[in-house]
């Protein structure tokens, strides 16, 4: 085990996969000479050369299209979208080609493409560059959606993504690139898709999150224990597709309450999907309506204070939980 930052763990995963499989190659804007906008790919161009680490023009639809073509032809590409906000330009390629080809070709064609995207607000990048689109991508059948919360999972899930025969949307929250954690150095270390992680056991309420929200959930659980003597169970979903409802439902049946935390907007967001599934599968175990703690229903403000107010906070989670207990 080695302690490293989440961005370093991602780089380790890419390195190991480039070494392991000669079919793997990387494409994206500024991923080579510049080392990646979030320095995830720093040093890989020097180590693996221009053939396997390719800088591309600013043409998202074209890059994803090239990645899909390469994957159809048998390669194992990874395309970096720089940030999730730019993926809107490639949405047709992702939704209409990557997600559909396997189905529409009756299984004759696979698109084993990994698309990495940095996601989330909190950095004063304003309304157009602060999206959280995990739920949007989870909406489309045919895509897998991965959102790690810590360095070890980031490495294990990214390596696992390269071994999947389907397109994997791999989403990295910008606020957690710098967090540190112990990461296994075993080159065969993988984290399976569709297996949620119970990060903290509790008896009174289940707090479900993914990606950056998981850290808020854990801090909120500490506050709840300290201030209210409420024992919260915290679940990190790790992947939204496939979704591990088994773990969530088992937890809700134990605690009788659920709070879902995500940065995305509440209206039509993934938390609504999860909430509906909890009600469908555990209605008779609920002691309170499922609560959602989500981003406010506005385009992300640029102003620092307003941006902070627009994003969910630990206090919002504590309030949602205590509201279930009080008269």
């Amino acid at each position, binding site marked *: 085990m080695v302690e490293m930052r989440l961005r370093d763990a991602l780089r380790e995963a890419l390195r190991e996969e480039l070494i392991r499989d000669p079919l793997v190659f990387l494409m994206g804007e500024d991923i080579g000479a510049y080392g990646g906008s979030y320095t995830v790919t720093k040093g890989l161009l020097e180590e693996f050369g221009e053939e396997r680490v390719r800088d591309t023009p600013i043409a998202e639809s074209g890059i994803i299209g090239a990645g899909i073509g390469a994957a159809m032809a048998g390669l194992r590409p990874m395309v970096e979208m720089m940030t999730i906000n730019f993926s809107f330009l490639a949405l047709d390629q992702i939704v209409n080609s990557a997600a559909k080809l396997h189905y529409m070709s009756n299984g004759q064609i696979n698109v084993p493409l990994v698309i990495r995207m940095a996601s989330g607000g909190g950095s004063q990048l304003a309304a157009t560059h602060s999206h959280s689109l995990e739920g949007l991508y989870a909406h489309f059948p045919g895509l897998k959606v991965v959102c790690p919360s810590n360095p070890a999972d980031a490495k294990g899930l990214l390596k696992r993504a390269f071994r999947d025969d389907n397109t994997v949307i791999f989403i990295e929250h910008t606020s957690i690139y710098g967090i540190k954690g112990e990461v296994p150095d075993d080159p065969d270390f993988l984290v399976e898709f569709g297996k949620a992680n119970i990060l903290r056991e509790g008896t009174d309420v289940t707090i479900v999150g993914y990606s950056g929200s998981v850290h808020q959930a854990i801090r909120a659980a500490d506050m709840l224990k300290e201030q209210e003597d409420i024992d919260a169970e915290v679940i990190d979903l790790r992947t939204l597709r496939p979704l591990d409802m088994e773990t969530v439902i088992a937890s809700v049946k134990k605690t009788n309450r659920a709070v879902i935390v995500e940065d995305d907007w509440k209206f039509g967001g993934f938390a609504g999907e999860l909430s509906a599934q909890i009600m469908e599968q555990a*209605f008779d175990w609920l*002691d309170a309506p499922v609560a959602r703690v989500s981003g406010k229903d506005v385009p992300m403000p640029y102003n620092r204070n307003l941006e902070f107010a627009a994003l969910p906070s630990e206090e919002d989670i504590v309030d949602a939980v205590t509201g279930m207990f009080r008269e």
Partner: protein
Amino acid sequence: MAIEIAMPQMGADMTEGTVVKWLKQVGDTVTRGEIIAEIETDKATVELEAFESGVLKRLVAAEGDTVPVGDPIAILGEADEVVPGDGPSRVAATPPRRVVDRTAEPVAATPMRDGVTASAGPSLTPGGRIRISPVARRIANEAKFDVSRLTGSGPDGRILRRDVEEAIRAGVAAVAAPVAAQPAAELRPLPPPRASVAAPAAAGPVEALSRMRQAIARRMTLSKQTQPHYYLTLDIDMTAAMAFREQINATANEEQRVSVNDLIVKACALALARHPKFNAEFTEAGLKLHDQVNIDIGIALDDGLIAPAILNCAEKTLGHIAADAKDLIARAKTGHLRANEYSEGTFTITNLGAYGVESLIGIINPPQAAILGVGSVMPQAVVRDGQIVARQVMKVALSADHRVTDGAEGARFIKEIQGLLENPASLAL
């Protein structure tokens, strides 16, 4: 077209009723407003009016059947109409009705009056459903535990898992240890665990609660738990009112003879018209001011009490009120009240003057905003113009919901009643 006559909701906490007697039979013509049956509820036997005209085609409920609120009890139709299920063996051929399950929540209530829904009951929603979480309901159903008397500790009074589990524990313990002389514990929706530690030494028989007793317990507990009361008392000099009454009764016929309580009802009706917030109901959405003044009068019965309303008091003369009160008391004692008489009251007067009680501080009759407690008219030594004189004095106490009004408003209201009774000529109008 066939019309279903459903078991009506007569009172906020009614979940079922028993058909005591059919006053119309199959084939009879019924006109709107006609009394067609007698229905027994928790509180009394009431007459059921037809809301539509037609021919009674089928009796779904037989006499003696207990039916959940909202379920059909009869079918009305045109004279030559054939209604489904019509046939020679009418009552017997009816489809099996739902068995009344006391552990289940009550059926969604029918709106009570002009769109206002039944308000209260422990943990009741405005629609009359019990507010209970799914897990709490499941646990209660599995334990066959009646949640209708529980008060929830969750948001908006929702019954939560912990409430049901505590109540089941307490309930099981209470049954296990015969309770000794602690009726209060039985009425409490959530008996504290210590209730079960009763000394079995003084154990006596546990008397089952009548339905009226249960209803009184439920409503009085609801009132004290949800309506913050404040109390104002004062003395009213009734000397002039007593003389006024004597004057009227000297010539009035038997039906219109006026009681002291009738004078108080008339005074309250006039005062309520000028102080509408005491003729109101607190709801989360806002204050509901009633446009009619319907004054409930508390009537003691052998096995409890009931407070039916003299409807539309503000529009009635003193003589009309006196006649209505006599009729109401007579029918209450024989259990023949109409539904609106005990579901549409907007203010209550409770009077134990006849029992020689000096003063009475009442519990508000939910969801009303106030109640007036009245004691005996007694000769007392009073200081008037520096002289001690004998006057006829009556103590009254206003109990009012502090969510609706404040003390100073209460003071103005009760002073208004005092002024009207001390200058009784205005009551004659």
